[in-house]
Structure formats: structure tokens, C-alpha cells
């Protein structure tokens, strides 16, 4: 290499490092929200929600407009994203240090990233169990966003995953909700013979497959092992239960879904629509989806939406009473200049009136506020779902938010490979183990 080229390369590398620099970050202990701080009812509150699109979008718009009636000097900057797009949007805003005053979070590793990075205000003095505001929530919902005894988010609604089924079709074919995994597979052949798609399934985005897998892992892998395997620092990922759960998943995809190996090319909304239109007998869904699947003008609404927990195998070695799902909440930005105002707005959003509105159709998001889900305002499946979540032995957080992103991504790719039939459960587990080892 010529001397001048070498000098240029050295200069370039030096400049590159000088321009980027290395820093230990601006991470500081999270700002603690002062319970006595009086909010200044002026300025703009920015909020990143996961309520983009129909039918959820008007909820925060209405909240903002109602709050503005009470405090005309306050204005809002609403950033409304969908379940899929909010992941990218949040990362973009985080990387550019432009997080809004209030932002959406899942429980688990997703929320912990913000807590560890000093981006979540410590709400303990105002929302911990025993405080005036905190007493409005179920304790388990608050604990979903707790770390080291501190509370970092306002739980807005609870959630859980259930198999939704068409009651008319089940009745017509003399089927009852299955109580074991084998019964579920048997019911698929009855539905198929009658000309229905037994379970509609769309895995284009990858996470619908992960939801099946996580529930089956909870059934087949002992709870302590499973919890240890979520963190790369303690993960071994050697339990045979993983292989059994993945076998069950492929059996379900091949025996019960209409699209089978082609499911990676189908959107989850297409699958949801198949149940809504009475074309499929079952669709695995979150409580949050119940009211939109069985919307007022849908065929499913006339036929009746029933729900049951994805049944476990008879000889399951894990916890067959666990339910996959966790509350979803909102964090107040620790660096917000409007933290007191943001907390005041979130108190307004979780008052009994707004909590009841959130739990009722068309929103159907079962509020984490005690007593908000009731026969007066919520649909029967939502009430039943919340009842079962409360009775479950444990709530298992989604696989794509409970573990670190690289491991979640390996599970996602593995789930798609299982659906397509291009990898065996052993191969998938090996690739996840490799991703987990790399993250240690």
C-alpha cells in the first residue's frame, strides 16, 4: 500500500472514531416522580400509543380532547402506531433521543431496556400498591412493570391469549371445547370433514407462531427452567420439553390449519377475518382482539364467540395452568420536562369512567383498573378471558418481549422454519442456543 494511501486510511479511521467517540452513555438513575409536584397545565404532551388504526385510534384522541376541555392550555402530540410498527418507531425515537413524554411498553425485557437505560421515570411514590393511585390497579398488573421493588409504568390493560371458537359451528358438529391437546387435534378433523378450516393461522409477521410456542413451552418446560432460559446469562435451553412443544406446534400447523406450510405467506388479519366470517372454526387470539373479531356487523357476532385456553397435553411436564399474556402499559419519560403533567394525564386516562370506556366495545381492552371490566360494559368473552387470566397459576410474557432481542429473533426465524417444515425442532433449538450464547 502506498504511503499516502496508508496515511489517508489512518486519518479516516482516526476521524471516524473521533466523530463518533465512545461514551459510557447518559444513563443516570431514573428520575423519581415527586408525588407532591403540582402539574403545570400548559405546554404540549407528546404520547406514543399502540392504538393506531381502527377501532382503537379514537380512544386516545377522545382522551386528549376531554383533557383539553379541563385544561385548555394543554395541547397534545399523539403518535399512534400499530402493534407491528410501534417496535420500529420506538427504537428510532430512542436512538435519536426523541422519546415522547409518555410512551407504550410491553412487560418483560422490552420495559427493562427503558428502565435500565434510565428512560423510565420511577413512579413508585405515586403508583406503588398502597398509594392512592396504585390502589386502583390489580397488584399483579403493577408488578409486571416492577424492577428491584420499584414501579416504572402505568398498566393500562390486561391481556391473555385464548383460542376463540365459533359457537354455532361447534354446536352444529357436536363439538365441545377440548380439554387436552389430543382432543384439539381430533376436533380439527371433524371441522375439516364438515368443510371448515379448523384453525385459521397467518404467520407472515412471525409472532403469531411465537405465541403458540410460548404457551406450549409453558406447558412442557418446568417453570423454573423456562424462566432461567429467558436470560442469556443463565440460559441452557436443553430441556426436552422444548422439542416436545415444537413437535406439538408443527402437528397443529399441519393437522389443523388450512394454510399449513403456506402459513408464512398469510397475514394474521386474514386469519382473524376467516373466524369473523364463519369460514374457520377457531383462531388463536389475544383478549384485545375479541371485540374486533366479533365486531357488531360480523357473522361471528351472530354465531357467538366462545373461548378456551389452548389445551395442554395430558403428560405435560411444565405448568398446564399458566396462561400466556401480560398487561401492557405506559411509561413516563424520565427526561420529560412535563413529568408531573404526564402523570396527571395518565391518572385521568385510568379514572373509573375512562377505564370502563376502554373495556367496552368497540375498544374491548380490559382495563387494569379494578372493577372496570363488568357485565355492564364488557362483552362476555372479554369478561371470561380476564376471569381465566386472574385464575391462572402464572402469566407468561410473550416470547418476543420476555427475552433479549437477538434470542427472540432466533425464535422467530425458527418458528417460521417449523411452519415451512425446513428445520427440525432440534435444529431450531440449536440456533436459539447459539444466539443465546452469543448474547452472554
Amino acid at each position, binding site marked *: 500500500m502506498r504511503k499516502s494511501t496508508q496515511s489517508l486510511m489512518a486519518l479516516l479511521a482516526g476521524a471516524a472514531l473521533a466523530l463518533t467517540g465512545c461514551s459510557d452513555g447518559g444513563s443516570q438513575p431514573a428520575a423519581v416522580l415527586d408525588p407532591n409536584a403540582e402539574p403545570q397545565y400548559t405546554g404540549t404532551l407528546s404520547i406514543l400509543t399502540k392504538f393506531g388504526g381502527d377501532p382503537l385510534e379514537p380512544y386516545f384522541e377522545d382522551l386528549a380532547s376531554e383533557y383539553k376541555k379541563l385544561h385548555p392550555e394543554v395541547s397534545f402530540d399523539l403518535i399512534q402506531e400499530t402493534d407491528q410498527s410501534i417496535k420500529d418507531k420506538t427504537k428510532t425515537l*430512542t436512538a435519536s433521543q426523541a422519546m415522547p413524554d409518555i410512551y407504550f411498553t410491553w412487560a418483560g425485557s422490552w420495559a427493562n431496556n427503558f428502565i435500565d437505560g434510565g428512560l423510565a421515570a420511577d413512579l413508585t411514590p405515586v403508583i406503588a400498591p398502597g398509594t392512592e393511585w396504585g390502589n386502583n390497579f390489580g397488584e399483579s398488573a403493577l408488578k409486571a412493570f416492577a424492577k428491584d421493588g420499584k414501579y416504572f409504568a402505568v398498566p393500562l390493560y390486561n391481556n391473555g391469549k385464548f383460542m376463540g371458537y365459533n359457537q354455532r359451528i361447534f354446536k352444529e358438529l357436536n363439538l365441545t371445547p377440548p380439554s387436552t391437546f389430543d382432543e384439539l387435534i381430533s376436533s380439527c378433523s371433524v371441522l375439516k370433514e364438515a368443510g371448515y378450516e379448523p384453525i385459521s393461522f397467518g404467520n407472515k409477521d412471525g409472532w403469531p407462531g411465537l405465541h403458540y410456542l410460548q404457551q406450549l413451552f409453558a406447558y412442557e418446560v418446568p417453570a423454573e427452567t423456562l424462566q432461567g432460559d429467558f436470560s442469556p446469562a443463565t440460559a441452557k435451553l436443553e430441556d426436552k420439553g422444548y422439542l416436545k412443544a415444537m413437535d406439538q406446534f408443527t402437528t397443529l400447523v399441519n393437522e389443523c390449519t388450512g394454510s399449513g406450510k403456506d402459513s408464512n405467506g398469510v397475514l394474521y388479519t386474514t386469519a382473524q377475518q376467516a373466524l369473523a366470517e364463519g369460514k374457520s372454526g377457531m383462531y388463536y387470539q389475544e383478549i384485545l382482539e375479541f371485540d374486533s373479531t366479533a365486531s357488531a356487523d360480523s357473522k361471528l357476532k351472530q354465531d357467538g364467540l366462545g373461548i378456551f385456553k389452548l389445551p395442554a397435553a395430558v403428560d405435560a411436564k411444565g405448568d398446564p395452568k399458566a396462561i400466556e399474556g401480560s398487561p401492557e402499559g405506559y411509561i413516563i419519560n424520565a427526561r420529560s420536562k412535563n413529568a408531573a403533567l404526564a402523570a396527571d394525564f395518565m391518572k385521568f386516562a385510568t379514572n373509573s369512567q375512562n377505564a370502563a370506556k376502554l373495556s367496552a366495545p368497540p375498544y374491548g381492552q380490559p382495563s387494569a383498573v379494578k372493577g372496570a371490566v363488568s357485565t355492564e360494559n364488557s362483552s362476555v368473552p372479554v369478561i371470561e378471558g380476564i376471569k381465566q387470566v386472574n385464575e391462572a397459576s402464572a402469566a407468561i410474557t410473550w416470547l418476543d418481549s420476555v427475552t433479549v432481542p437477538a434470542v427472540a429473533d432466533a425464535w422467530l426465524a425458527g418458528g*417460521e422454519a417449523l411452519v415451512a417444515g425446513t428445520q427440525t425442532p432440534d435444529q431450531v433449538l440449536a440456533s436459539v442456543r447459539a444466539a443465546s450464547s452469543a448474547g452472554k
Partner: protein
Amino acid sequence: MTVSDTAWKPAAPPPAPLSTKSPKSRTRKSARTHGWRNVVWVLPAVLLLGAFAYLPLVQNLGFSFLKWDIYSGRQTFVGADNYVRMFNDPIFWKSLLNNSLYAIISIAFQVFGAMILAAMIEGLRSQRWRGILRAVYFVPSAISLTVAGLLFYFIYEPEMGILNAALDFLGLGNFTQAWLGQENTAIFAIIAMSQWQGFGYCTLLFSVALQRIPSELYEAASIDGVGPFQRFFSISLPLVREMTGLMMIVTVSGAFQVFNEVMVMTSGGPNNSSQVLGTWLYRSGFVRNDFGYAAAVATAVFIITLVLAVIQLRISKKRRVQW
């Protein structure tokens, strides 16, 4: 005439007896003055390019030597670790292979295919039909890539898509499949959409290049009894070689920068089978929170496209057409 136009006029020679300086020194001074003026004129563009193109490039190079946690903002120097991981990452190589496939297929269709089509269109006698066909082929290029991606997502949809319905209708039901949902077909389905989208644009550019060829050459060849195929190979092909070179650069660079259509149609799935360098870079940064590694992939993309462009520019320089 504007002030600047006047400034560019060569200065009138001063009367010889009054001048004490040699003509050579005067020319040097004039060149220096003009040189500074030139610099002033190009300075805004240079500054903008520097701020928005070269500075981020250099910064990206710096990021590629770091481990960067976007949540805490913590940045740790890790040396060449990201590059070592990249060379050992099978998904990086899969992505590179997919980009290369994209480039090869795009050269076949968007360069040579488009050139043949352009020659056929320009060979038509009817001016009206030439115009209509150019417009027909160009319309897909006017659709945004995101819209085209969504459109083709629904065409390829395994249950409701029109492609499978058409195959069924033609009695080719055995060939129906989830085009975007199968690992062995996903990337080809995306590439096919991309060819559809870019084909017309390339055809139009080749049509313009063909129109610039003097008609006397074709007339003379016809009088000498040369047939249409030989006319294409002996006249058209050599005389549009500059445009061919340009299209090769644009097509190959584009193939290594592809992003939108893959994101819209598969996000790189299933099982990373349709991952390209752009989407793998994005996924590494924004999904896996591995921004240092993403910067290393970005540097690789830059080097690949730079090397390819330099090679092609050198080749096309030698093939310049002189009229």
C-alpha cells in the same frame, strides 16, 4: 448579460509598453483568480454533500467499531469485533447472495431485456404505437415501490391472491404455492416484482439512446441488405454501449441497496430466506438492538457498491461513443 457572464469573458490584453509582467505570469494569476471563483461557486454543494453524505459515512465507519446500547446511550469500543462477527454470520452471506441474485437477474431483465424491448419499440413504423407502448411500459415505474410491494403481496397471497387463482384457472394448480411464504420462492417472487417495476424505466432510457443514433446508419445498412437482427447487433448494440454501461451501474448499485420491497413483502422472512443486506442491516439495528453490527453491515454495503461502481466506470470510460 449578467455580471457573472461578464466576469467570465477573457480580459482584453493590456497595451504592451505599460506591462512589466510576462504573459505567462498573467495567465497564472488569471487562473488563480478563476480557480478561487470556481471554489466559491461549488462550495455550497461541497458543504452540503460533506454534511449530509460524507460526514454520516465517516460517522458510520466509527460506529462500526463500537457496541452501542441505544437505551442507555452507552458506547464501548470493540475494535474489529463487529466485522469478525459479520464474516462469520451465515445470514450476512445469505443476504449478500440474495443481493447478487438481484443484481444478476436485474442485469438480464432491466439492461439486456429492456434494450431488446426498446429496439423492438423503436423499430415500429407507427409513431403513435411507439408512444403508446413506451407509456404502457413506463407506468409501473411511476408507482412507488411501497405501493407496488403491497400490490404484489396481495397478488402472491396463497389463498386469495390472483396468481394462484390464475394458475388454478389454467389447470396448473400443482404450481400454486405461498410465493412469499416459502423459503425457496420468497426472494424470487420479490425480484420478479422488482423487474416488473423497473423494466419500463430502463426501456424508456434505452429508447432515448436509440433515437440518438443517426438514421442514416440504418438506411445505409438496409440498402446494403443487412437484416434487422444484424442491424441490432452491428449498429444499435455498439452505439448504445454508453447507456448500457450507465444502466449496469444504476442496476447493480440499486440491487445492493434494495430495501423497500423486501420490507413490505416479507421483512426478510421466512426464516431470513429473503434477507438482503439492507434489511439485515435494519433488522440488526432496529430489531436486535445491535447498532454497531448494523454499522459494520452498512460499511460493507458501501464498499461493495463503491468497488462495483469504480470498476464499471472504468470499463464504460473505455467504451465511450464518439459521434
